[in-house]
């Protein structure tokens, strides 16, 4: 055995989907997390329910670089269909575990190979009900791996406890198999590979969560009152998170509800309901993914022009069209920005980690109500559905901001002299009233057709441009509300790296490698919303070369930057790539090295 490699490798587990391996994989992930080692878990799954190949990749990295890697030091194969692929994927010198039910030949001798005694161990488990056998069998690899690399059994127990919400029976059932497997490994597995984990204290105070759950909880702290949604991967789990946590977080003594969540008949109805609720003065939202977003187009234009606050989460998957429904992407950016026929410029938030999913969850409502506008939040499948280490959610540091709403007493003071679309404060943002206001002058008639300052129908040319220009004014005003970019600087840096969303960790790792491996120092800027904040052009200007990294084909962020800052065109280089898998540091590193080192 070569020198020990501690807390710095990737484990990939190949299984058949629908076989219940998620429990096993999460257990490994959680116990590593609890051991204080920076870790991430990514599920690469097919778009069906049962029977196809699926992979789960866990990366441990003592320095906190937990972006996806293409290389796999440890591979566990539980699926005969993916056996040859899995075998091929092991790094030379790596470890390969496979279940004893696979009778295929090992064709490599540059790796360490271990057979998992799944059948033997499961045969002994008389108390496992038949229908659970397959599920529980996965615990064999948990146990063997734990013994092999040194995962703390106590933490495994805690992880199971969490997973089964404290229910003793399944915990015991699974833990027993793990213990048996550990025992077997102790006696039979001769460790010849170099991979080990060792407890650290890097995760103190951190939590682990997926972005959709974070967004759901954040939205609840934002006071969500109405959600219309329609199931779609990967948007669904955001809605389902809201359904799960609302009763917990908004429980009242009288058992009554301050909210309603409705599964609509499709996405047109989902956003239609949300816009109706937004008009009615509720904090309203919907969540979807690509195809659903496409169906929301007409309504998005209505909300834009009629100025209805509504929050739309788009958890991005690979498009165009049905595309790869279970793979990640950042490909909806330009489409979302221009969604709706006619002149539209939509406001977009771009969370980059679970904490921002939480924060933008509540903040999006403040922005939407303040600007009386739809606000789109673009997350993605990787961020939304995979487990991420995160700082604890922080209680909102600002009170809820409902924007300019007039109630009876306000109208009283104004003697009823108001108009729905008047630019009273010269900031482009009008005042609004909501149904149920009893003041006889409160009502107005909302429409997507041309209207004047009082909301009355008109086809007058000058009025049309006046109204549409005011909305543009609002868009520039929005800059004040958009979270500033996250800028990280390095003394002496010559190049800038611009990115958005879930590529944050890959960028951080790549910057580290650039510096240590190629002595290239870089600054980075993660953009967090559109319209671009003031710091964005400043950052671009301050580097001759800015590489814009994004997970799509066409360089969408790059294009929007060009549109906004044409004079900075020379400073921008587009690096766009999307194959459905989360970005790696290697991609960023290689792309920059090619251009910087000719």
């Amino acid at each position, binding site marked *: 055995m070569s020198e020990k490699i501690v807390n710095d490798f990737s484990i990939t587990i190949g299984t058949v989907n629908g076989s219940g391996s998620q429990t096993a994989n999460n257990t490994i992930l959680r116990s590593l997390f609890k051991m204080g080692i920076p870790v991430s878990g990514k599920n690469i799954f097919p778009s069906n329910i049962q029977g196809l190949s699926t992979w789960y990749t866990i990366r441990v990295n003592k320095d906190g670089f937990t972006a996806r890697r293409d290389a796999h030091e440890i591979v566990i194969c539980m699926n005969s269909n993916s056996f040859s692929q899995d075998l091929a994927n092991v790094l030379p010198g790596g470890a390969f575990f496979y279940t004893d039910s696979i009778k295929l030949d090992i064709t490599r001798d540059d790796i360490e190979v271990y057979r998992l005694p799944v059948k033997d161990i499961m045969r002994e488990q008389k108390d496992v009900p038949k229908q659970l056998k397959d599920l529980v069998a996965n615990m064999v690899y948990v146990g063997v791996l734990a013994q092999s690399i040194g995962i703390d059994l106590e933490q495994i127990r805690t992880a199971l406890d969490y997973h089964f919400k404290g229910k003793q029976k399944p915990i015991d059932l699974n833990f027993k198999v793990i213990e048996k497997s550990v025992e077997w490994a102790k006696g039979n597995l001769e460790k010849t590979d170099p991979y080990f984990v060792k407890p650290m204290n890097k995760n103190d105070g951190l939590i682990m969560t997926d972005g959709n759950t974070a967004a759901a909880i954040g939205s609840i702290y934002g006071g969500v009152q109405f959600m219309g949604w329609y199931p779609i991967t990967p948007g669904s789990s955001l809605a389902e998170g809201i359904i799960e946590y609302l009763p917990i977080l908004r429980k009242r003594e009288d058992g*009554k509800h301050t909210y309603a969540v409705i599964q609509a008949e499709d996405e047109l109805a989902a956003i239609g309901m949300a816009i109706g609720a937004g008009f*009615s003065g509720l904090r309203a939202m919907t969540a979807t993914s690509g195809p659903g977003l496409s169906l929301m187009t007409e309504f998005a234009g*209505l909300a834009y022009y009629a100025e209805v606050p509504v929050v739309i989460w788009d958890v991005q998957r690979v498009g165009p069209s049905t595309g790869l429904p279970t793979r990640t992407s950042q490909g909806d950016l330009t489409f979302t920005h221009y969604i709706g026929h006619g002149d539209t410029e939509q406001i977009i938030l771009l969370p980059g980690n679970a904490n921002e999913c939480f924060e933008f969850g509540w903040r999006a409502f403040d922005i939407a109500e303040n600007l009386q506008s739809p606000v789109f939040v673009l997350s993605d499948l990787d961020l939304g559905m995979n487990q991420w280490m995160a700082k604890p959610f922080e209680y909102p540091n600002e009170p809820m901001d409902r924007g300019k709403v007039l109630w009876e007493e306000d109208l009283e003071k104004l003697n009823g002299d108001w108009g729905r679309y008047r630019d009273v404060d010269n900031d482009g943002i009008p005042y609004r009233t909501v149904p*149920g206001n009893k003041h006889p002058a409160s*009502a107005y008639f909302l429409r997507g057709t041309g209207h004047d300052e009082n909301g009355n129908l008109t086809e007058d040319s000058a009025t049309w441009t006046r109204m549409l220009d005011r909305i543009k004014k609002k868009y520039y005003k929005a800059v004040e509300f958009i979270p500033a970019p996250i800028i990280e600087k390095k003394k002496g840096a010559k190049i800038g790296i611009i990115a958005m969303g879930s590529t944050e960790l890959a960028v951080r790792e790549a910057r580290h490698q650039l510096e240590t491996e190629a002595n290239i120092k870089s600054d980075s800027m993660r953009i967090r919303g559109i319209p671009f904040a003031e710091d964005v052009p400043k950052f671009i200007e301050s580097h001759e070369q800015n590489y814009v990294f994004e997970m799509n084909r066409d360089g969408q962020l790059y294009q929007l930057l060009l549109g906004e800052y044409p004079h900075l065109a020379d400073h921008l280089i587009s690096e766009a790539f999307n194959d459905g898998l989360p970005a790696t540091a290697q991609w960023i590193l290689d792309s920059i090295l090619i251009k910087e080192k000719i």
Partner: protein
Amino acid sequence: MAEPLQMAGSKIKVNRIGLQKTDYRGNLTTLCQGCGHNSISNQIIAACYEANILPEDVVKFSGIGCSSKSPSYFLSRSFGFNSLHGRMPSVATGALFGNKYLHGIGVSGDGDTTNIGMGQFKHVIRRNVPLVYIIENNGVYGLTKGQFSATAEVGLNLKYQGVNSYMPIDIPKEALIAGASFIARSFAGDPKQVKELLKAALSHRGIAILDIISPCVTFNNSDEAYHSYAWGREHEVAIHDLSYVPPSEEITVDYAEGEFKEVTLHDGSKILLKKLEREYDPTSRVDAMRVLEESDNSESLLTGLIYIDPDRPDLIEQHNLVDEPLNRLNESDLRPAADTIDMINNLMF
């Protein structure tokens, strides 16, 4: 019935809540002279006035079309949402959660509802959203200049369109199959019936589908056309003579035993149905389907309250909302307390 009170020392007629009929008016109509839709707007004004409904307690909804414009022509003091073509039901569904005490009145066209809007129409019914959903049905697209809608009868011959060969969609039947809790058909040429049905619908809890034949005088009003004034006047057969008795009022009409049927609505108001030609029980789905099928065959325009189930809980009731209107709740109701954040973080492992 519902004879408005006189205010002391004034000659101006006002209703129970002290409003004049003009308080229920809207903008001047911009629809064609004689359009059926205008006559329906007038009956909405009359019904709300007579039913003593505060305009501020009403929200109006519509899709797109001549019909969908009409909410500007009544109840100026009510909020309104002129939404997208075919999408009025979803907007109304969301909006009505804002304040559960509001009356929702939705106006749509036959094209808006049975062509582009068929999906939302069916689903708003399934959910029993508390909405008076009026379809101003003229068999054509008025606003886009006279194309066939899905309610056009087979054989209808229109100037620029030729002859329709597709099966027409029958709105009350569709509503019945989808499980609507209140279904009526009426005729813009029968304003009294329209008005009484509207008052009943406004008292109903849950969805109230009103299919009102409303002739398009510009594009589909030739005497043989099913949706014309002439045809309607000649072929209308009311299944009963209907009147609405508000919650607090005594029944004053003097009907002989067995001559009428009474349906009590959830708010205590009553619908009195005086038997005309046939025996008819509007609380029976089977009766409703039968009479609709029969009228198909007998070439008549059957009008009246076709079906009602006054007891089914509506969507908003099902959600068990707090007493205060949702849109008047504030931060303390909506944002979980600060101390919950630790609990949540602990749940996150």
